[in-house]
């Protein structure tokens, strides 16, 4: 039941936040992470943010992984 796509924090009230994942908004508790801010990207599990991630870095590393694969066997 793991949701792999990072969600973006768009609102914070106390320990609760509103998160946006691909345009869908829902609530997520921030109790399990430190120093969450609006605009941060988080991994959410069962209504709780469980990890903050650097979205640019995450995208970059996925891109690198894909590039590495492309270099292994150029398609054209």
């Amino acid at each position, binding site marked *: *039941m793991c949701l*792999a796509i990072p969600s973006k924090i768009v609102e914070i009230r106390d320990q609760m936040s509103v998160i946006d994942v691909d345009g869908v908004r829902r609530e997520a*508790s921030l109790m*399990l992470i430190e120093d969450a801010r609006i605009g941060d990207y988080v991994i959410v599990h069962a209504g709780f943010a469980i990890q903050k*991630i650097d979205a640019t870095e995450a995208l970059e590393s996925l891109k690198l992984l*894909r590039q590495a*694969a*492309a270099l*292994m*066997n150029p398609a054209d």
Partner: protein
Amino acid sequence: MTVNGKPAYSRKELAAAFAARIRDAVRRPMRLMEVCGTHTVSIFRNGIRTLLPPEIALLSGPGCPVCVTAQQEIDAFIALARIEKVTVATFGDLMRVPGTLSTLRSEKADGRDIRMVYSALDALNIAAHNPDRRVVFIGVGFETTAPTIAASIVMAADRGINNFSVLAAHKLVPPVLAALMESGGVQIDGFLLPGHVSVIIGAQAYLPFVQQYGIPCVIAGFEAEDILNAILKLARQVANGGARLENAYKRVVSFEGNPRALALMHTVFEPVDAPWRGIGTIAASGLKIRKDFSRFDARKVFALDVPETGEPPGCACGDVLMGRKTPPQCALYKRICTPANPVGPCMVSSEGSCAAYYRYHGD
């Protein structure tokens, strides 16, 4: 093909590139286990099995939370729902899992108050809004879910919501991996370790396991490329006689895990021996609520005493979870057991190996 002047590759081409590398790396037949149910689904959905050379067999492991929940535990959930003034709150995928005589779904149809929730906090809110009900949340899942449930118990204590309790039936990943290695008849050459369990416990949590059993382990993300990359790393380790832990999901998983979540989990829970579906009891592989929080422990609050029962006759879920059998090797698969009419939890959960085979294998 170019995009903005740069070469671009379709994901299919990328997957083919990974597959070619994996073929190059393979020297001998190997059996790799993906521990996590979400990996199982991603592997089927992305057709990864069809990309791999015939030497690599992928086995689904004990990482589908619903699948490993023992029948006795399901019976306990049902017994709770039958107690007066009790409202049972649960994650939806438990509803259809057969207990010895009933399911939560049929109990609900019979008028018991059973609610499907998305989070432990939803259950806590139901308790806060219904002071005349005794709301019990069913805590299943692994280290990813356990801290969320610990958080709900701490909040209940802080807010004085005393009509809330949890029936804890959590399971822990490192102990079941060790049990797998100790059990006879299981041949595994490498493990694809779960992504989000590892977010909580950190890569470090597997080091004792890897050291003790000397087996290649790679933590993997959920994208097709993540999984192929992890399989490539495993194949290379197997070829070179490696026995290392590699983290191939560094963009999300750190070495030390999530200290805050771990601290909360340890504040509320302590390890306990736990029953696993078709596998039996594994030492210190579950979590029980500590004494300090016993007023939120449904086992204590309701003095539950549920007799031990066997698994449904003929269901091979235990062997499937241990990588000893594939679903088609179960005599009931497809003939009697289908997603519409499941005999065991491995066919109920969308992450169960039997359900995934049924859905993606065609005939």
